[in-house]
Protein backbone atom coordinates (compact mmCIF):
# COMPACT_ATOMS: atom_id res chain seq x y z
CA UNK A 1 0.00 0.00 0.00
CA UNK A 2 1.15 3.51 -0.70
CA UNK A 3 2.60 4.99 2.42
CA UNK A 4 3.94 1.88 4.13
CA UNK A 5 7.44 2.75 2.97
CA UNK A 6 7.12 6.15 4.59
CA UNK A 7 5.95 4.64 7.87
CA UNK A 8 8.77 2.11 7.82
CA UNK A 9 11.29 4.92 7.42
CA UNK A 10 9.73 6.77 10.32
CA UNK A 11 9.94 3.65 12.45
CA UNK A 12 13.66 3.37 11.72
CA UNK A 13 14.36 6.99 12.58
CA UNK A 14 12.28 6.71 15.75
CA UNK A 15 14.29 3.66 16.76
CA UNK A 16 17.51 5.64 16.42
CA UNK A 17 15.97 8.60 18.23
CA UNK A 18 16.11 6.53 21.38
CA UNK A 19 19.34 4.70 20.61
CA UNK A 20 22.79 5.39 21.95
CA UNK A 21 24.60 8.34 20.42
CA UNK A 22 27.84 7.44 18.74
CA UNK A 23 29.54 10.78 18.23
CA UNK A 24 32.95 11.09 19.83
CA UNK A 25 32.97 14.29 21.89
CA UNK A 26 36.38 15.19 20.61
CA UNK A 27 38.22 17.65 22.82
CA UNK A 28 37.02 15.94 25.99
CA UNK A 29 37.10 12.45 24.59
CA UNK A 30 40.03 11.47 22.42
CA UNK A 31 39.28 9.33 19.38
CA UNK A 32 40.39 5.72 19.53
CA UNK A 33 43.41 5.70 17.29
CA UNK A 34 44.69 2.52 15.79
CA UNK A 35 48.19 1.46 16.59
CA UNK A 36 49.53 2.26 13.12
CA UNK A 37 47.92 5.68 13.00
CA UNK A 38 50.15 8.22 11.30
CA UNK A 39 50.14 11.46 13.19
CA UNK A 40 53.12 13.76 13.42
CA UNK A 41 56.39 12.67 11.87
CA UNK A 42 59.38 12.87 14.20
CA UNK A 43 63.00 11.87 14.15
CA UNK A 44 65.18 10.26 16.78
CA UNK A 45 68.03 12.65 16.34
CA UNK A 46 70.61 10.55 18.13
CA UNK A 47 70.09 7.55 15.86
CA UNK A 48 70.27 9.41 12.57
CA UNK A 49 73.36 8.75 10.49
CA UNK A 50 72.67 11.58 8.04
CA UNK A 51 72.52 9.25 5.04
CA UNK A 52 69.85 11.37 3.33
CA UNK A 53 67.76 8.50 1.99
CA UNK A 54 64.64 9.98 3.56
CA UNK A 55 65.06 13.25 1.69
CA UNK A 56 65.42 11.33 -1.55
CA UNK A 57 62.38 9.13 -1.00
CA UNK A 58 60.07 11.90 0.07
CA UNK A 59 57.77 12.71 -2.86
CA UNK A 60 57.03 16.21 -1.66
CA UNK A 61 60.34 17.55 -0.35
CA UNK A 62 59.12 17.64 3.19
CA UNK A 63 62.43 16.59 4.69
CA UNK A 64 65.77 18.29 4.54
CA UNK A 65 68.91 17.93 6.58
CA UNK A 66 72.19 19.67 7.20
CA UNK A 67 75.25 17.53 7.81
CA UNK A 68 78.94 17.94 8.41
CA UNK A 69 82.04 15.76 8.59
CA UNK A 70 83.17 14.93 12.05
CA UNK A 71 86.79 16.02 12.39
CA UNK A 72 87.84 13.07 14.48
CA UNK A 73 85.94 10.11 13.16
CA UNK A 74 85.68 11.34 9.57
CA UNK A 75 82.06 10.28 9.63
CA UNK A 76 79.08 12.33 8.54
CA UNK A 77 77.08 13.74 11.38
CA UNK A 78 73.77 15.45 11.51
CA UNK A 79 73.67 19.12 12.35
CA UNK A 80 70.02 19.92 11.91
CA UNK A 81 66.97 18.22 10.55
CA UNK A 82 63.90 19.95 9.16
CA UNK A 83 60.42 18.51 8.75
CA UNK A 84 58.07 20.80 6.88
CA UNK A 85 54.80 19.28 7.99
CA UNK A 86 52.62 21.36 5.70
CA UNK A 87 53.65 19.33 2.66
CA UNK A 88 53.61 15.92 4.33
CA UNK A 89 51.26 13.38 2.75
CA UNK A 90 51.73 10.82 5.54
CA UNK A 91 52.64 8.24 2.93
CA UNK A 92 55.11 6.46 5.22
CA UNK A 93 57.74 6.11 2.47
CA UNK A 94 60.47 7.80 4.50
CA UNK A 95 59.74 5.68 7.56
CA UNK A 96 59.91 2.48 5.53
CA UNK A 97 63.14 3.45 3.82
CA UNK A 98 65.07 4.80 6.80
CA UNK A 99 68.01 2.40 7.31
CA UNK A 100 68.58 3.49 10.90
CA UNK A 101 64.89 3.19 11.74
CA UNK A 102 64.88 6.63 13.30
CA UNK A 103 61.87 8.22 11.61
CA UNK A 104 58.48 7.51 13.13
CA UNK A 105 54.93 8.72 13.19
CA UNK A 106 53.40 9.35 16.59
CA UNK A 107 49.73 9.62 17.50
CA UNK A 108 49.61 13.40 17.70
CA UNK A 109 47.13 14.68 15.16
CA UNK A 110 46.52 18.16 16.53
CA UNK A 111 48.94 19.84 14.19
CA UNK A 112 47.21 23.07 13.31
CA UNK A 113 49.16 26.25 13.84
CA UNK A 114 48.32 29.92 13.56
CA UNK A 115 51.23 30.78 11.35
CA UNK A 116 52.55 28.99 8.33
CA UNK A 117 56.11 29.31 9.62
CA UNK A 118 55.27 27.47 12.81
CA UNK A 119 54.38 24.31 10.92
CA UNK A 120 57.99 23.74 10.02
CA UNK A 121 59.80 21.78 12.67
CA UNK A 122 63.58 22.10 12.97
CA UNK A 123 65.67 19.76 15.11
CA UNK A 124 69.08 21.02 16.21
CA UNK A 125 71.96 18.93 17.34
CA UNK A 126 71.84 18.70 21.13
CA UNK A 127 75.15 19.82 22.66
CA UNK A 128 75.72 16.69 24.72
CA UNK A 129 75.87 14.63 21.56
CA UNK A 130 79.29 15.95 20.70
CA UNK A 131 81.38 13.54 22.66
CA UNK A 132 84.63 15.38 22.32
CA UNK A 133 84.62 19.11 22.54
CA UNK A 134 85.71 20.49 19.24
CA UNK A 135 85.95 24.08 18.33
CA UNK A 136 86.52 23.60 14.65
CA UNK A 137 84.30 22.05 12.06
CA UNK A 138 80.99 22.90 13.62
CA UNK A 139 81.08 26.63 13.25
CA UNK A 140 78.28 26.65 10.70
CA UNK A 141 75.72 25.31 13.13
CA UNK A 142 76.09 28.14 15.59
CA UNK A 143 75.04 27.96 19.20
CA UNK A 144 73.57 24.50 19.04
CA UNK A 145 76.81 22.57 18.77
CA UNK A 146 79.22 24.58 20.88
CA UNK A 147 79.00 23.06 24.31
CA UNK A 148 80.80 24.47 27.29
CA UNK A 149 84.05 22.57 27.93
CA UNK A 150 84.07 20.44 31.04
CA UNK A 151 80.37 19.82 30.89
CA UNK A 152 80.93 17.54 27.99
CA UNK A 153 83.17 15.24 30.02
CA UNK A 154 80.58 14.92 32.71
CA UNK A 155 77.73 14.56 30.26
CA UNK A 156 79.64 11.86 28.46
CA UNK A 157 80.20 9.92 31.66
CA UNK A 158 76.60 10.20 32.58
CA UNK A 159 75.52 9.17 29.10
CA UNK A 160 77.61 6.03 29.33
CA UNK A 161 76.28 5.20 32.74
CA UNK A 162 72.72 5.63 31.57
CA UNK A 163 73.36 3.46 28.59
CA UNK A 164 74.83 0.71 30.73
CA UNK A 165 71.95 0.87 33.16
CA UNK A 166 69.47 0.77 30.34
CA UNK A 167 70.93 -2.40 28.85
CA UNK A 168 71.01 -3.98 32.26
CA UNK A 169 67.41 -3.01 32.78
CA UNK A 170 66.43 -4.51 29.48
CA UNK A 171 68.21 -7.77 30.27
CA UNK A 172 67.06 -8.38 33.80
CA UNK A 173 64.72 -5.71 35.05
CA UNK A 174 63.67 -7.36 38.31
CA UNK A 175 67.21 -7.80 39.53
CA UNK A 176 68.18 -4.21 38.85
CA UNK A 177 65.00 -2.76 40.23
CA UNK A 178 64.89 -4.80 43.41
CA UNK A 179 67.69 -2.59 44.70
CA UNK A 180 65.38 0.38 44.61
CA UNK A 181 62.17 -1.05 46.03
CA UNK A 182 61.36 -3.05 49.12
CA UNK A 183 60.73 -6.54 47.80
CA UNK A 184 60.81 -8.68 44.70
CA UNK A 185 57.09 -8.43 44.12
CA UNK A 186 57.26 -4.67 43.92
CA UNK A 187 60.21 -4.96 41.60
CA UNK A 188 58.14 -7.09 39.29
CA UNK A 189 55.35 -4.54 39.27
CA UNK A 190 57.82 -1.80 38.49
CA UNK A 191 59.33 -3.83 35.68
CA UNK A 192 55.88 -4.14 34.16
CA UNK A 193 55.36 -0.38 34.34
CA UNK A 194 58.69 0.33 32.78
CA UNK A 195 58.15 -2.09 29.98
CA UNK A 196 54.79 -0.53 29.20
CA UNK A 197 56.07 3.02 29.23
CA UNK A 198 59.49 3.76 27.88
CA UNK A 199 59.51 7.34 29.09
CA UNK A 200 59.14 6.16 32.68
CA UNK A 201 62.06 3.81 32.23
CA UNK A 202 64.20 6.62 30.93
CA UNK A 203 63.22 8.82 33.83
CA UNK A 204 64.15 6.21 36.40
CA UNK A 205 67.43 5.36 34.74
CA UNK A 206 68.40 8.98 34.61
CA UNK A 207 67.70 9.30 38.32
CA UNK A 208 69.65 6.13 39.04
CA UNK A 209 72.69 7.60 37.40
CA UNK A 210 72.23 10.91 39.16
CA UNK A 211 70.75 10.49 42.59
CA UNK A 212 70.16 7.04 44.07
CA UNK A 213 67.89 8.23 46.86
CA UNK A 214 65.65 10.15 44.58
CA UNK A 215 65.41 7.17 42.28
CA UNK A 216 64.26 5.06 45.19
CA UNK A 217 61.56 7.54 46.08
CA UNK A 218 60.27 7.76 42.54
CA UNK A 219 60.31 3.99 42.15
CA UNK A 220 58.24 3.51 45.29
CA UNK A 221 55.82 6.20 44.13
CA UNK A 222 55.37 4.45 40.79
CA UNK A 223 54.69 1.13 42.47
CA UNK A 224 52.19 2.60 44.91
CA UNK A 225 50.32 4.37 42.14
CA UNK A 226 50.13 1.19 40.10
CA UNK A 227 48.91 -0.79 43.09
CA UNK A 228 46.15 1.72 43.72
CA UNK A 229 45.16 1.63 40.09
CA UNK A 230 44.96 -2.13 40.09
CA UNK A 231 42.75 -2.01 43.13
CA UNK A 232 40.32 0.43 41.57
CA UNK A 233 40.31 -1.61 38.39
CA UNK A 234 39.36 -4.65 40.40
CA UNK A 235 36.33 -2.74 41.62
CA UNK A 236 35.34 -1.02 38.43
CA UNK A 237 35.77 -3.91 36.04
CA UNK A 238 38.40 -4.16 33.39
CA UNK A 239 39.30 -0.83 31.95
CA UNK A 240 42.10 -0.22 29.58
CA UNK A 241 43.74 3.06 29.82
CA UNK A 242 44.04 4.42 26.34
CA UNK A 243 46.96 6.48 25.38
Amino acid at each position, binding site marked *: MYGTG*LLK*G*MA*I*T*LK*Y*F*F*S*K*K*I*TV*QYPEEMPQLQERFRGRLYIEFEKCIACGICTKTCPNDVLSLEDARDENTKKKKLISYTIDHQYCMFCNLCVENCPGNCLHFNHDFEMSKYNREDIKEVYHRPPEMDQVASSAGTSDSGEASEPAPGLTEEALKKQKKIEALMTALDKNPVKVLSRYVENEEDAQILAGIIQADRSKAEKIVELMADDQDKARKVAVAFVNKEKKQRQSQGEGGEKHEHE
Partner: protein
Amino acid sequence: MMQKIETLFVDLSDWFIAWLQSLGVPLAWADGILLLIQFLCIVGIILVNITILIWLERKVSGFIQQRPGPNRLGPFGVFQTIADALKLLTKEDIIPSKTDRWIFLTAPILFMTISVMLYIVLPMGKDMQVVDLNVGLFFFISLGSLTTIALLMGGWGSNNKWSLLGAMRSVAQMISYEIPLALSLMGVVMIAGSLRLSDIVAAQDNLWFVILQPIAFLTYLISATAELNRGPFDMPEAEQELTAGAYTEYTGMRYALFFLAEYTNLVAVSALASTIFLGGWQGPWLPSWLWIIIKTYLVMFIFMWAKWTFPRIRMDHLMAFSWKVLIPVTLVNIVATGFGLYIFKGIGG
Protein backbone atom coordinates in the same frame (compact mmCIF):
# COMPACT_ATOMS: atom_id res chain seq x y z
CA MET B 1 -4.20 26.28 44.67
CA MET B 2 -4.87 24.39 41.45
CA GLN B 3 -7.57 26.90 40.60
CA LYS B 4 -5.09 29.74 41.19
CA ILE B 5 -2.60 28.33 38.74
CA GLU B 6 -5.29 27.59 36.24
CA THR B 7 -6.58 31.14 36.13
CA LEU B 8 -3.22 32.78 36.81
CA PHE B 9 -3.02 34.83 33.63
CA VAL B 10 -6.74 35.65 33.51
CA ASP B 11 -6.58 36.90 37.10
CA LEU B 12 -3.53 38.95 36.30
CA SER B 13 -5.24 40.78 33.46
CA ASP B 14 -8.43 41.29 35.50
CA TRP B 15 -6.36 42.73 38.32
CA PHE B 16 -4.51 44.96 35.88
CA ILE B 17 -7.75 46.40 34.46
CA ALA B 18 -9.09 46.97 37.95
CA TRP B 19 -5.88 48.73 38.91
CA LEU B 20 -6.00 51.00 35.87
CA GLN B 21 -9.63 51.86 36.60
CA SER B 22 -8.76 52.69 40.19
CA LEU B 23 -6.27 55.20 38.77
CA GLY B 24 -9.16 56.81 36.92
CA VAL B 25 -8.53 55.44 33.44
CA PRO B 26 -11.73 54.76 31.48
CA LEU B 27 -12.54 51.12 30.72
CA ALA B 28 -12.10 51.43 26.96
CA TRP B 29 -8.62 52.87 27.42
CA ALA B 30 -7.70 50.24 29.94
CA ASP B 31 -8.76 47.55 27.52
CA GLY B 32 -6.62 49.14 24.85
CA ILE B 33 -3.58 49.22 27.09
CA LEU B 34 -4.16 45.61 28.04
CA LEU B 35 -4.35 44.66 24.37
CA LEU B 36 -1.00 46.30 23.77
CA ILE B 37 0.54 44.45 26.67
CA GLN B 38 -0.96 41.22 25.47
CA PHE B 39 0.58 41.79 22.08
CA LEU B 40 3.98 42.35 23.64
CA CYS B 41 3.51 39.16 25.63
CA ILE B 42 2.82 37.28 22.41
CA VAL B 43 6.05 38.53 20.90
CA GLY B 44 7.83 37.46 24.05
CA ILE B 45 6.23 34.04 23.98
CA ILE B 46 7.14 33.65 20.34
CA LEU B 47 10.76 34.54 20.89
CA VAL B 48 11.16 32.23 23.86
CA ASN B 49 9.33 29.50 22.03
CA ILE B 50 11.50 29.84 18.98
CA THR B 51 14.73 29.65 20.89
CA ILE B 52 13.52 26.45 22.45
CA LEU B 53 12.16 25.22 19.15
CA ILE B 54 15.31 25.71 17.11
CA TRP B 55 17.27 24.02 19.84
CA LEU B 56 14.71 21.22 19.85
CA GLU B 57 14.88 20.79 16.10
CA ARG B 58 18.62 20.41 16.28
CA LYS B 59 18.33 17.99 19.15
CA VAL B 60 15.69 15.92 17.35
CA SER B 61 17.69 15.83 14.13
CA GLY B 62 20.78 14.94 16.10
CA PHE B 63 19.11 12.19 18.06
CA ILE B 64 17.63 10.70 14.89
CA GLN B 65 21.06 10.73 13.32
CA GLN B 66 22.73 9.21 16.39
CA ARG B 67 24.38 12.48 17.30
CA PRO B 68 23.92 14.33 20.59
CA GLY B 69 23.07 17.60 18.85
CA PRO B 70 24.19 20.94 20.28
CA ASN B 71 25.74 20.39 23.68
CA ARG B 72 28.36 23.03 24.20
CA LEU B 73 26.61 26.16 25.44
CA GLY B 74 24.74 25.76 28.68
CA PRO B 75 23.14 22.58 29.94
CA PHE B 76 22.38 20.33 26.95
CA GLY B 77 23.34 23.21 24.68
CA VAL B 78 20.16 25.24 25.29
CA PHE B 79 21.95 28.55 24.81
CA GLN B 80 23.14 27.61 21.34
CA THR B 81 20.21 29.36 19.65
CA ILE B 82 20.78 32.51 21.65
CA ALA B 83 24.41 32.54 20.64
CA ASP B 84 23.42 32.04 17.01
CA ALA B 85 20.88 34.85 17.19
CA LEU B 86 23.51 37.15 18.69
CA LYS B 87 25.90 36.20 15.94
CA LEU B 88 23.33 36.92 13.25
CA LEU B 89 22.49 40.24 14.90
CA THR B 90 26.06 41.41 14.81
CA LYS B 91 26.63 40.39 11.21
CA GLU B 92 26.88 42.87 8.42
CA ASP B 93 23.60 43.49 6.63
CA ILE B 94 24.63 43.08 3.01
CA ILE B 95 22.27 44.49 0.41
CA PRO B 96 23.40 43.51 -3.08
CA SER B 97 23.55 46.47 -5.44
CA LYS B 98 21.25 45.06 -8.11
CA THR B 99 18.33 44.35 -5.80
CA ASP B 100 14.91 45.95 -5.92
CA ARG B 101 15.81 47.75 -2.77
CA TRP B 102 12.55 48.43 -0.94
CA ILE B 103 10.97 45.14 -1.79
CA PHE B 104 14.13 43.37 -0.73
CA LEU B 105 14.29 45.23 2.56
CA THR B 106 10.65 44.94 3.60
CA ALA B 107 10.07 41.30 2.70
CA PRO B 108 11.49 39.76 5.91
CA ILE B 109 9.71 42.32 8.07
CA LEU B 110 6.41 41.60 6.37
CA PHE B 111 6.95 37.88 6.73
CA MET B 112 7.59 38.20 10.45
CA THR B 113 4.64 40.56 10.99
CA ILE B 114 2.20 38.22 9.32
CA SER B 115 3.49 35.29 11.32
CA VAL B 116 3.07 37.14 14.59
CA MET B 117 -0.46 38.23 13.67
CA LEU B 118 -1.52 34.59 13.46
CA TYR B 119 -1.26 34.32 17.24
CA ILE B 120 -3.97 36.87 17.92
CA VAL B 121 -6.78 34.38 17.50
CA LEU B 122 -5.15 31.32 19.04
CA PRO B 123 -6.64 30.29 22.38
CA MET B 124 -3.70 29.68 24.66
CA GLY B 125 -5.71 28.45 27.57
CA LYS B 126 -9.12 28.77 29.13
CA ASP B 127 -10.31 32.32 28.41
CA MET B 128 -6.83 33.19 27.22
CA GLN B 129 -7.18 34.69 23.79
CA VAL B 130 -6.19 38.14 22.62
CA VAL B 131 -9.17 38.54 20.34
CA ASP B 132 -11.94 35.98 20.17
CA LEU B 133 -13.03 36.63 16.60
CA ASN B 134 -16.20 35.00 15.40
CA VAL B 135 -14.35 34.17 12.17
CA GLY B 136 -11.13 33.13 13.93
CA LEU B 137 -10.39 30.13 11.76
CA PHE B 138 -11.05 32.10 8.61
CA PHE B 139 -8.75 34.85 9.83
CA PHE B 140 -6.02 32.33 10.50
CA ILE B 141 -6.21 30.67 7.10
CA SER B 142 -6.35 33.88 5.13
CA LEU B 143 -3.46 35.45 7.02
CA GLY B 144 -1.46 32.28 6.67
CA SER B 145 -1.71 32.44 2.90
CA LEU B 146 -0.34 35.98 2.92
CA THR B 147 3.15 34.74 3.73
CA THR B 148 3.43 33.78 0.06
CA ILE B 149 3.58 37.45 -0.81
CA ALA B 150 6.46 38.01 1.55
CA LEU B 151 8.37 35.10 0.04
CA LEU B 152 7.63 36.30 -3.47
CA MET B 153 8.83 39.77 -2.54
CA GLY B 154 12.04 38.34 -1.17
CA GLY B 155 12.61 36.19 -4.23
CA TRP B 156 11.75 38.91 -6.71
CA GLY B 157 13.55 41.69 -4.90
CA SER B 158 16.77 39.71 -4.62
CA ASN B 159 17.14 39.81 -8.39
CA ASN B 160 18.80 36.43 -8.34
CA LYS B 161 17.83 33.46 -10.44
CA TRP B 162 17.91 31.02 -7.58
CA SER B 163 15.76 33.30 -5.46
CA LEU B 164 13.30 33.80 -8.25
CA LEU B 165 13.00 30.07 -8.84
CA GLY B 166 12.46 29.53 -5.15
CA ALA B 167 9.82 32.25 -4.97
CA MET B 168 7.98 30.89 -7.99
CA ARG B 169 7.98 27.45 -6.49
CA SER B 170 6.69 28.79 -3.22
CA VAL B 171 3.79 30.61 -4.88
CA ALA B 172 2.77 27.57 -6.87
CA GLN B 173 3.05 25.36 -3.84
CA MET B 174 1.22 27.65 -1.43
CA ILE B 175 -1.69 28.21 -3.78
CA SER B 176 -2.06 24.50 -4.35
CA TYR B 177 -1.92 23.57 -0.71
CA GLU B 178 -4.07 26.42 0.58
CA ILE B 179 -7.12 24.61 -0.75
CA PRO B 180 -6.69 21.20 0.91
CA LEU B 181 -5.67 22.99 4.10
CA ALA B 182 -8.89 24.95 4.23
CA LEU B 183 -10.98 22.02 3.06
CA SER B 184 -9.60 19.68 5.67
CA LEU B 185 -10.65 22.14 8.38
CA MET B 186 -14.17 22.41 6.96
CA GLY B 187 -15.26 19.07 8.34
CA VAL B 188 -14.48 20.27 11.85
CA VAL B 189 -16.29 23.54 11.25
CA MET B 190 -19.35 21.63 10.08
CA ILE B 191 -19.45 19.56 13.26
CA ALA B 192 -18.71 22.44 15.59
CA GLY B 193 -21.01 24.76 13.68
CA SER B 194 -18.76 27.76 14.22
CA LEU B 195 -15.61 29.43 12.94
CA ARG B 196 -14.90 30.81 16.37
CA LEU B 197 -11.93 28.94 17.81
CA SER B 198 -13.20 28.99 21.37
CA ASP B 199 -16.44 27.37 20.19
CA ILE B 200 -14.47 24.68 18.40
CA VAL B 201 -12.51 23.93 21.56
CA ALA B 202 -15.69 23.86 23.57
CA ALA B 203 -17.23 21.42 21.09
CA GLN B 204 -14.46 18.92 21.92
CA ASP B 205 -15.56 18.59 25.54
CA ASN B 206 -16.31 14.90 25.21
CA LEU B 207 -14.52 13.76 22.10
CA TRP B 208 -11.52 15.16 20.28
CA PHE B 209 -12.08 15.86 16.64
CA VAL B 210 -9.07 13.78 15.70
CA ILE B 211 -11.26 10.73 16.38
CA LEU B 212 -14.20 12.05 14.40
CA GLN B 213 -12.06 13.44 11.60
CA PRO B 214 -8.88 11.30 11.32
CA ILE B 215 -8.57 11.82 7.57
CA ALA B 216 -8.93 15.55 7.95
CA PHE B 217 -6.22 15.52 10.61
CA LEU B 218 -3.85 13.69 8.28
CA THR B 219 -4.56 15.91 5.29
CA TYR B 220 -4.20 18.95 7.53
CA LEU B 221 -0.78 17.80 8.69
CA ILE B 222 0.37 17.15 5.13
CA SER B 223 -0.86 20.41 3.67
CA ALA B 224 0.38 22.32 6.70
CA THR B 225 3.87 20.91 6.10
CA ALA B 226 3.67 22.22 2.57
CA GLU B 227 2.37 25.57 3.78
CA LEU B 228 5.25 25.82 6.21
CA ASN B 229 7.79 25.04 3.48
CA ARG B 230 9.18 22.31 5.64
CA GLY B 231 10.76 19.06 4.55
CA PRO B 232 9.77 16.95 2.66
CA PHE B 233 8.01 19.88 0.95
CA ASP B 234 10.76 22.48 1.30
CA MET B 235 10.74 23.38 -2.38
CA PRO B 236 11.27 27.14 -1.97
CA GLU B 237 14.49 26.63 -0.05
CA ALA B 238 15.58 23.25 -1.36
CA GLU B 239 19.10 23.64 -0.13
CA GLN B 240 20.55 20.92 -2.35
CA GLU B 241 18.99 22.36 -5.49
CA LEU B 242 18.41 26.07 -5.11
CA THR B 243 21.16 26.71 -2.55
CA ALA B 244 18.72 28.61 -0.30
CA GLY B 245 15.95 29.57 -2.72
CA ALA B 246 14.27 32.84 -1.88
CA TYR B 247 16.68 33.49 0.98
CA THR B 248 19.87 33.18 -1.05
CA GLU B 249 20.79 36.85 -0.97
CA TYR B 250 19.80 37.58 2.61
CA THR B 251 22.35 37.95 5.35
CA GLY B 252 22.49 38.69 9.03
CA MET B 253 19.34 39.66 10.83
CA ARG B 254 17.24 39.80 7.69
CA TYR B 255 17.97 36.18 7.07
CA ALA B 256 17.32 35.48 10.73
CA LEU B 257 13.90 37.13 10.44
CA PHE B 258 12.92 34.72 7.69
CA PHE B 259 14.25 31.90 9.74
CA LEU B 260 12.40 33.00 12.86
CA ALA B 261 9.19 33.62 10.95
CA GLU B 262 9.24 30.08 9.64
CA TYR B 263 9.47 28.73 13.14
CA THR B 264 6.81 31.16 14.29
CA ASN B 265 4.55 29.73 11.64
CA LEU B 266 5.43 26.23 12.72
CA VAL B 267 4.33 26.96 16.27
CA ALA B 268 1.15 28.65 15.05
CA VAL B 269 0.19 25.82 12.75
CA SER B 270 0.91 23.20 15.40
CA ALA B 271 -1.08 25.16 17.96
CA LEU B 272 -3.97 25.35 15.54
CA ALA B 273 -3.75 21.61 14.96
CA SER B 274 -3.93 20.93 18.67
CA THR B 275 -6.75 23.48 19.08
CA ILE B 276 -8.87 22.05 16.33
CA PHE B 277 -8.15 18.35 16.46
CA LEU B 278 -6.66 17.59 19.86
CA GLY B 279 -9.11 19.30 22.15
CA GLY B 280 -7.24 22.58 22.50
CA TRP B 281 -6.47 23.59 26.07
CA GLN B 282 -8.72 20.92 27.52
CA GLY B 283 -7.17 18.22 29.63
CA PRO B 284 -7.23 16.84 33.13
CA TRP B 285 -5.05 17.72 36.13
CA LEU B 286 -2.74 20.23 34.55
CA PRO B 287 -3.62 23.90 33.95
CA SER B 288 -5.08 24.62 30.52
CA TRP B 289 -2.20 26.75 29.28
CA LEU B 290 0.20 23.90 29.98
CA TRP B 291 -1.95 21.46 28.05
CA ILE B 292 -1.86 23.51 24.90
CA ILE B 293 1.91 23.76 25.14
CA ILE B 294 2.27 20.00 25.54
CA LYS B 295 -0.02 19.26 22.64
CA THR B 296 1.63 21.85 20.41
CA TYR B 297 5.06 20.42 21.06
CA LEU B 298 3.83 16.92 20.34
CA VAL B 299 2.49 18.03 16.96
CA MET B 300 5.74 19.84 16.27
CA PHE B 301 7.68 16.69 17.04
CA ILE B 302 5.73 14.93 14.30
CA PHE B 303 6.69 17.70 11.87
CA MET B 304 10.36 17.40 12.81
CA TRP B 305 10.34 13.65 12.75
CA ALA B 306 8.94 13.64 9.22
CA LYS B 307 11.38 16.28 8.06
CA TRP B 308 14.41 14.32 9.20
CA THR B 309 13.18 11.08 7.71
CA PHE B 310 11.92 11.88 4.24
CA PRO B 311 13.63 12.97 1.06
CA ARG B 312 12.31 16.01 -0.77
CA ILE B 313 9.47 15.43 -3.16
CA ARG B 314 9.71 16.60 -6.76
CA MET B 315 7.93 19.79 -7.82
CA ASP B 316 5.53 18.22 -10.31
CA HIS B 317 4.76 15.34 -7.96
CA LEU B 318 4.05 17.87 -5.28
CA MET B 319 1.48 19.66 -7.40
CA ALA B 320 -0.03 16.42 -8.62
CA PHE B 321 -0.32 15.18 -5.07
CA SER B 322 -2.26 18.24 -4.04
CA TRP B 323 -4.65 18.40 -6.98
CA LYS B 324 -5.10 14.71 -7.62
CA VAL B 325 -4.99 13.24 -4.14
CA LEU B 326 -5.41 15.71 -1.32
CA ILE B 327 -8.21 17.85 -2.73
CA PRO B 328 -10.42 14.90 -3.77
CA VAL B 329 -9.81 13.22 -0.43
CA THR B 330 -10.72 16.31 1.54
CA LEU B 331 -13.80 16.88 -0.60
CA VAL B 332 -14.95 13.32 -0.01
CA ASN B 333 -14.31 13.84 3.67
CA ILE B 334 -16.56 16.90 3.68
CA VAL B 335 -19.34 15.04 1.90
CA ALA B 336 -19.00 12.12 4.28
CA THR B 337 -19.11 14.47 7.24
CA GLY B 338 -22.25 16.08 5.85
CA PHE B 339 -23.90 12.70 5.50
CA GLY B 340 -22.80 11.71 8.95
CA LEU B 341 -24.19 14.88 10.45
CA TYR B 342 -27.47 14.45 8.58
CA ILE B 343 -27.90 10.90 9.82
CA PHE B 344 -26.79 11.79 13.33
CA LYS B 345 -29.23 14.69 13.48
CA GLY B 346 -31.92 12.51 11.96
CA ILE B 347 -31.46 9.98 14.74
CA GLY B 348 -31.00 12.59 17.43
CA GLY B 349 -33.76 14.92 16.24
